[in-house]
């Protein structure tokens, strides 16, 4: 149902990023110089980014970089106090997660997704169960719910053994994917994935990354939050790097390489500082040399003059 319409969107947007109906340039979601402070603590400042249909925007940063604050603003849990936040070109301030959901923005959190003792199909429709019949005989349409669950998950590339199985028996990656498929089925246009690969092994991470691409190919705008550039680079179209609540770079994929991304994340300055500390301690010659080489390598590839995307 959504498929056709959004594939058109996707192609159109890939060409000139214009709304296919009005032919004016518009992003599905855009932030311009957005900032947020709690009392006198500045959690986020001057963040600019955009999300489009069929594109993946990656938000990278270490712990405390402001990633959580950023997604909380987009998911309606917090409100920004500076800058503008637009959905389909319209300036908005979301007051609750419900309002975000109604605007088509769904967040999938790492652990807050499913009730592990319940069967997969019950989880899939939890809170939005399909019913049939009326009055006291109003009941769940179990057969249809099972069928839809199986089909939707198959479309995401998850081949289920049995939708009756408790969701707790699935692997972490699969559980994450059920949550993603659920968000997609219930009409999400923007999908926020909060560190979906953080607790997963190499293979499982690969599975989740593939589902991110599946969601993208179905025409969704995806915001992928991670601290791992190796996960972000293969799937991302745009990369926003955060550090200490500030944007330290916003790149199109064509403007940056994985090495540069990693270097930016790792931070040449930190490595230099570590080298200095080791020098003062003395007696760590071997380690010191390694850190120094590393720091030099980082400094070399760091993209000083890369064009920063401004919308």
């Amino acid at each position, binding site marked *: 149902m959504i498929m056709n319409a959004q594939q058109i969107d996707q192609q159109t947007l890939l060409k000139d990023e214009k709304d296919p109906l009005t032919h004016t340039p518009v992003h599905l979601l855009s932030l311009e110089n957005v900032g947020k402070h709690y009392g006198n603590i500045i959690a986020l400042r001057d963040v600019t980014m955009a999300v489009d249909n069929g594109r993946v925007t990656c938000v990278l940063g270490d712990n405390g970089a402001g990633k959580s604050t950023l997604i909380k603003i987009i998911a309606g849990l917090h409100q920004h106090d500076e800058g503008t936040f637009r959905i389909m070109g319209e300036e908005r301030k979301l007051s609750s997660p*419900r309002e975000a959901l109604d605007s088509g923005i769904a967040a999938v*959190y790492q652990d807050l997704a499913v009730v*592990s003792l319940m069967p997969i199909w019950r989880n899939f429709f939890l809170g939005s*169960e399909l019913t049939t019949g009326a009055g006291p005989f109003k009941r*769940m349409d179990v057969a249809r719910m099972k069928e839809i669950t199986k089909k939707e998950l198959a479309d995401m590339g998850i081949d289920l*053994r049995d939708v009756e199985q408790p969701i707790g028996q699935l692997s972490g990656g699969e559980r994450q994917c059920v949550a993603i498929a659920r968000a997609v089925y219930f009409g999400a246009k923007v999908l926020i994935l909060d560190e979906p690969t953080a607790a997963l092994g190499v293979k499982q991470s690969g599975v989740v990354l593939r589902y991110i691409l599946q969601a993208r190919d179905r025409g969704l705008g995806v915001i992928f939050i991670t601290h791992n550039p190796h996960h972000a680079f293969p799937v991302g179209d745009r990369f926003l790097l955060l550090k200490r609540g500030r944007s330290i770079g916003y790149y199109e994929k064509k403007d940056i390489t994985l090495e540069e991304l990693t270097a930016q994340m790792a931070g040449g300055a930190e490595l230099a500082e570590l080298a200095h500390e080791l020098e003062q301690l003395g007696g760590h010659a071997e380690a010191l040399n390694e850190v120094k080489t590393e720091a030099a390598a980082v400094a070399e590839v760091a993209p000083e003059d890369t064009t920063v995307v401004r919308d």
Partner: protein
Amino acid sequence: MTHTATAPASTALDERIGRRSPFQKLLGRPEVGALVGAVVLFLFFSLVSATFLQPNAFATVLYGSSTIGIMAVGVSLLMIGGEFDLSTGVAVISSALTASLTAWYFSLNAWVGVALALVVSLGIGFINGWILVKTKLPSFIVTLATFLMLTGLNLALTRLIGGSVSSPSIARLDGFDSARAVFASSVSIGGVEVKITVFFWVLLVAIASWILLRTRVGNWIFAVGGDANAARAVGVPVTKTKIGLFMAVGFCGWILGMHNLFAFDAVQSGEGVGNEFLYIIAAVIGGCLLTGGYGSAVGGAIGAFIFGMANKGIVYAQWNPDWFKFFLGLMLLLATIVNLIVKRRAELK
């Protein structure tokens, strides 16, 4: 599992699902441990007691089971919803006392007292649930407090209003006979008198099973018991579900309270203490997980039936009833261990 490419979803049977016989499927149900226990106990008492299998004796066993089972329905649902209620035993008596004392004091029609008792029973459930969700205190503390307060209120108000530890007789009030017919009559089936509570019990189990397995609310009950935060995040009304469950327990307490009252014409105000554990035991024997999110209404019913069989069976076997509590404890332990083993084995298959 392996993450190979998508297979057509419509295939009727996946090759990765090993063939499970209907028997193995049965073993995966929450109430199966209790069922095994019930069958064993049934055979045991049938062998040691000549009278156990006689229709009249069996009707008595069913009656004994129903007085526990009616409450076990509500308590099972509540336990699946992740909470438990220590005030149920005395709340039953509070309900009966409300009906008898108000009807007697104001010389009202007995049915007015019955209606008021329903309001009070649902009210107690509501207050339990409301305090729980507002304070986020564990249900153990909240309902323990309610238990103590109701115990005191039952004794104090009965003495204050009626002047005795027992509520005054309401046998001569209007509507007493019709209320007795509804709550405490017997139905003759093939010459055997079966108490009406048995039918209430069966009806409640059927309704509870329907709600649990086939309605949205049932889905929510499993969800709030399994993981309240996850449930809230996907839009399940956690607060309403929990309060509703406590009120359902109140409703069951009202039915049993009315039976206790109209089976005679008065209630002892000190009764009911300790019964709350019988209801919880029935639910646990029946396979409801104490931590919530798993169980069934039928399981609670089987738990109550085990209780009824043991209770009356000891009498029919002409043993000293002093042993009853010991057997109850032993059965609780055995049934839960069997539950655990059966569940693990079924999940491995």
